[in-house]
């Protein structure tokens, strides 16, 4: 059995463990133990992976396990990882780990809450390790559906509306993805032979061009909905605003990455010719998303809305970079996913903690929090600085890689969109500093806030682990960047081969 299978088994065992728990405290500790183990497993995976690579193992994917599952349709349980998926797994385990601590004060139905949360995470892990399109889709659905219950039951505000909206929009995306995947399956053997769902095998073939042109938009839009692509992003502000803290963290931190990863791994990797032909349409949408999200965030007054729009902007940059079709930009895209994942999880964790104390998320009703909760405030400033791309944090590394990569495309169209996207760094600075200024600095506007308490130990674990994540990547990015680059080789070669001849 491969180490990867553990990533599915551990969450399932944890869920079984939760079912046997008697008290809420036990539920929490079992969850902590399970997800802590998962986190250790992820670190072990990273180390093992790096060791294998250093030992000269240049196989496209490592730690492969392949079992036939349903013969009629040739569906396999086929898992394996390259540098990109290893990085995504590291991200997921960190965010889930921090998310457990951030939901320490969840109100009721502990058992159910943690069950769904962990079930969701197992879907995410499964998605990232799958090499079989069918199982990948299965895990994808497994990750999306618990979201409805988590928001609908434990959410706040107009939670039923938000949960419904989010689920329906994502399901709409799923429908497109399903069509796209079936289309790929039916065309997976253009030169005869059995049809297959196997990503690696399909990637060695060139699918018929007319099919590609039909399937690419289906898949890119389908995954793009989850990646908050403009104009299919509106589930995000409402969904996040209503979701409980840990769910927001997981959703923005990890689940939205499923979208970007899907665009990268399925749409672009398997349909490169079509990507070259129609990618420009999505590039324009992504660029609009980058700048539009930033301006949208400038006007909002609810902390979660601000962060949701900021996510639209940052995730727009992911799609933007993927559509630049070169190694540097794609590397930046993956790093941006990781960076944004940790950063936004940190933001949502902090927002949840602040909300838990002040019972409001409207920045105008708060002010001067630095004085009463210095730990949370300093952490918020750090998250803000990371978000606006300060060197020393992961956001800078990712953004700079993206911009340098994007600049390698010398034609005027790419130049223009690159400069437009790059100008978002200024707008980002404006909305971040606006929030920091109103929320944390200045005088305390509400006298009752003088009594508020700072972070508890479980809050601190959650926050510190996430801050460490962005700082380590920000200070020493070389290992991560090289690991990701190693995984990009096949896709970059495919794109090069598929590139239309330059006149």
């Amino acid at each position, binding site marked *: 059995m491969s180490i990867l299978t553990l990533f599915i088994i551990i969450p399932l065992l944890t869920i079984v463990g939760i079912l046997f728990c008697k008290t809420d405290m036990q539920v929490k500790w079992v969850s902590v133990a399970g997800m802590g183990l998962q986190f250790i497993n992820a670190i072990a995976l990273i180390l093992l992976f790096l060791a294998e690579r250093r030992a000269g193992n240049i196989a496209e994917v490592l730690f492969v396990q392949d079992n036939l599952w349903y013969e009629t349709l040739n569906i396999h349980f086929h898992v394996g990882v390259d540098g990109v998926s290893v990085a995504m797994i590291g991200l997921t385990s960190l965010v889930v780990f921090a998310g457990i601590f951030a939901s320490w004060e969840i109100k009721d139905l502990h058992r159910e809450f943690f069950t769904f949360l962990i079930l969701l995470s197992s879907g995410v892990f499964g998605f990232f390790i799958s090499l079989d399109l069918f199982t990948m889709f299965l895990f994808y659905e497994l990750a999306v559906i618990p979201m409805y219950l988590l928001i609908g039951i434990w959410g706040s505000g107009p939670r039923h509306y938000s949960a419904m909206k989010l689920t329906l929009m994502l399901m709409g995306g799923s429908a497109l993805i399903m069509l796209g995947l079936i289309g790929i399956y039916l065309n997976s053997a253009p030169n005869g032979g059995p049809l297959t769902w196997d990503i690696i095998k399909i990637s060695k073939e060139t699918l018929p061009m007319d099919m590609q042109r039909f399937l690419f938009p289906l898949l890119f839009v389908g995954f793009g909905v989850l990646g908050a692509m403009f104009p299919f992003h509106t589930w995000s502000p409402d969904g996040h605003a209503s979701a409980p803290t840990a769910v927001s963290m997981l959703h923005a931190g990890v689940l939205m990455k499923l979208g970007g990863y899907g665009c990268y791994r399925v749409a672009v990797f398997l349909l490169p010719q079509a990507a070259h032909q129609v990618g420009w349409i999505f590039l324009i949408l992504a660029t609009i998303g980058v700048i539009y999200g930033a301006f949208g965030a400038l006007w909002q007054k609810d902390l979660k809305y601000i962060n949701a729009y900021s996510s639209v902007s940052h995730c727009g940059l992911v799609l933007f970079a993927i559509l630049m079709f070169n190694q540097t930009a794609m590397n930046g895209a993956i790093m941006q996913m990781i960076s944004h994942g940790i950063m936004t999880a940190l933001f949502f964790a902090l927002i949840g903690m602040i909300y838990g104390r002040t019972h409001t998320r409207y920045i105008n009703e708060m002010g001067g929090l630095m004085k009463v909760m210095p730990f949370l405030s300093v952490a918020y400033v750090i998250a803000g600085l990371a978000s606006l791309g300060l060197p020393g944090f992961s956001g*800078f590394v990712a953004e*700079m890689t993206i911009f*340098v990569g994007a600049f390698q495309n010398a034609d005027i169209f790419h130049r223009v969109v690159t400069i437009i996207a*790059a100008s978002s760094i200024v707008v980002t600075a404006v909305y971040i500093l606006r929030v920091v200024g109103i929320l944390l600095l*200045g005088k305390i506007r509400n006298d009752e806030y003088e009594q508020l308490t700072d972070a508890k130990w479980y809050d601190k674990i959650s926050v510190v682990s996430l801050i460490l994540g962005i700082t380590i990547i920000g200070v020493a990015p070389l290992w991560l960047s090289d690991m990701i680059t190693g995984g990009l080789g096949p896709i970059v070669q495919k794109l090069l081969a598929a590139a239309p001849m330059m006149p």
Partner: protein
Amino acid sequence: MIDFSYTAWILLLPIFLFIVIGLLGNRFKPIVSGIVGTSGLFIIWLLSLVTAYKYFFVLEKAADGSFLKFMAFNMRWLNLTDKLHIDMGVLLDPISVMMLIVITTVSLMVHLYSIGYMHGEKGFSRFFALLSLFSFSMLGLVVATNIFQMYVFWELVGVSSYLLIGFYYTKDSAVAASKKAFIVTRFADLGFLIGILMLSYVTGTFDFITLTGPDSPALTSGQGVWFLGLSTMTWSMIFVFMGGAGKSAMFPLHIWLPDAMEGPTPVSALIHAATMVVAGVYLVARLFPIYVFSAPVALDIVMWVGAFSSIFAAIIACTQYDIKRVLAYSTISQIGLMMFGLGVSGYGGHEGLGYMASMFHLFTHAFFKALLFLGAGAIIHAVHSNYMNDMGGLHKNLPITHATFLIACLAIAGVPPLAGFFSKDEILAAGSERSLLLYWVEMIVSGLTAFYMFRLYFSIFWGKKQEYHQTPHEAPKTMTIPLMILALGALLAGLIPFSNFVTSDRLPFVSHLDMGIAIPAVLVGLTGIVVAAFFYLKETDIPDKVFKALGSFSQAAFHKFYIDELYLFITKKIIFNYISRPVAWFDRHIVDGAMNGLAYITNETSDRIKKLQSGQLQQYALVFISGALLLVLLFVYLWTS
């Protein structure tokens, strides 16, 4: 070859201090943070001095007698493309070694001073932690081996400045000022980033040694006309200069610097007078060969922007009453002068006089301007006000501050043989060879400088006698000792034969004092002083009369020529109200409206259709029979026709 790799510690020590003081500072008494920070900086200062000594006097020179330019330490930080990669390291050449001295000396003085000045403040250890962070960032900036490393540290000094301006975070004006400083410089940095991207795209490297060397790819690539008749290289250098102009508060990106005076005074002395704000000058100097050989138009822009900023800020400085703001405008004006020096310079030997003079002025200015700010801090400390109207007759109460402040004023006014005289004279000499018009403009700036500095000096230390609540008294030793040391620098720094060390091509040359320029310059400066004495030595109504006589011009200058209002109009009115707000509305009502509309239509449709499934047998029968009838009719119709 001597091993210089220990210079990496010059960078590692301050960041270590930042982490230690930042994390543990609150566990101990505040003074511990001050002592740890200051003694740490003392070690860094010693290391820098040793480095400078070894670099200038011990290290052998290149075959042609020039100073070497080499990397003492370099490591890979991030791989970007197959050619481009970001490294972190230490580059040693005359200007970076000179900057090491400037930064560590001023920073050490400011640390020492702050122990006294910040005594009893809340957040004392936070202050020292941030000072260490700033020192780290600034040192990293000047020793950068490649332009991207410079950009990394460029952003870091920006954020240290943001955090220190907003040090008194409960004060709304300080919060607003810090935000403004960060956003304005961030906007400029966008230009810097685009410039870097263009430069690296055409040359395929970030590396300074390659870029500015004799076989630089910047000399050959990117020369074709690209846009508006200028080459790619010129545009990239213009964009890079935009970053420099933002950080160095050049017109029209200067608006953040006067507001930045909301920060504690030692911070103003260190960051907003002596070190960070000259980063733009340093940036242009660092890329100077590219500017001269590949982008002369960009260099002309540097010259014009510098000259205009210097006169513009000098005029405003004459009308302000907040002593720190006067000094801030004075800083803008002096940095404009440095930019002007670079802008008029050529490359190599005497041609590069402007370059040498500009660096020289940067060096001397750091001493006397830091001294002026620290002196202002001591005064504010004593009278608890920033406004010169609240001061007067302080020369008896604050003897040491008075003496050192006077030295600094004389130095900046260009009175021989103090520091400012020599460096300013060289800039004027270089300017006279290039453009007579701008030479006279800078001459006027000299006069204005002398005038507003002595306006300040007389209003504070002489002028009318003030009634103070408490008798002002001299600052403690930790504050006056740095003043005296810096005063020594302001007195003597001008005597250094600068052209033996720092020149455009790193080859020493001999520069002479040009009497034809020195004498008029001194006379203009003395005139400024005399006029100021005439106006302000005794309390008179002459200033008011003159102010009124100049009418709307002096009003405009007093209101800083309404540049702030213009920016406010653009940001608040246009960007916030006419872009951001409509975007938010569009998102909620059009994009989301479409989604909700879709849901609504689906709901409505199903609502209509669901009536068909009523469960009533009679209704089903009715529908069934109606349908059957319809079909029959249809068939009949089709058959018969």
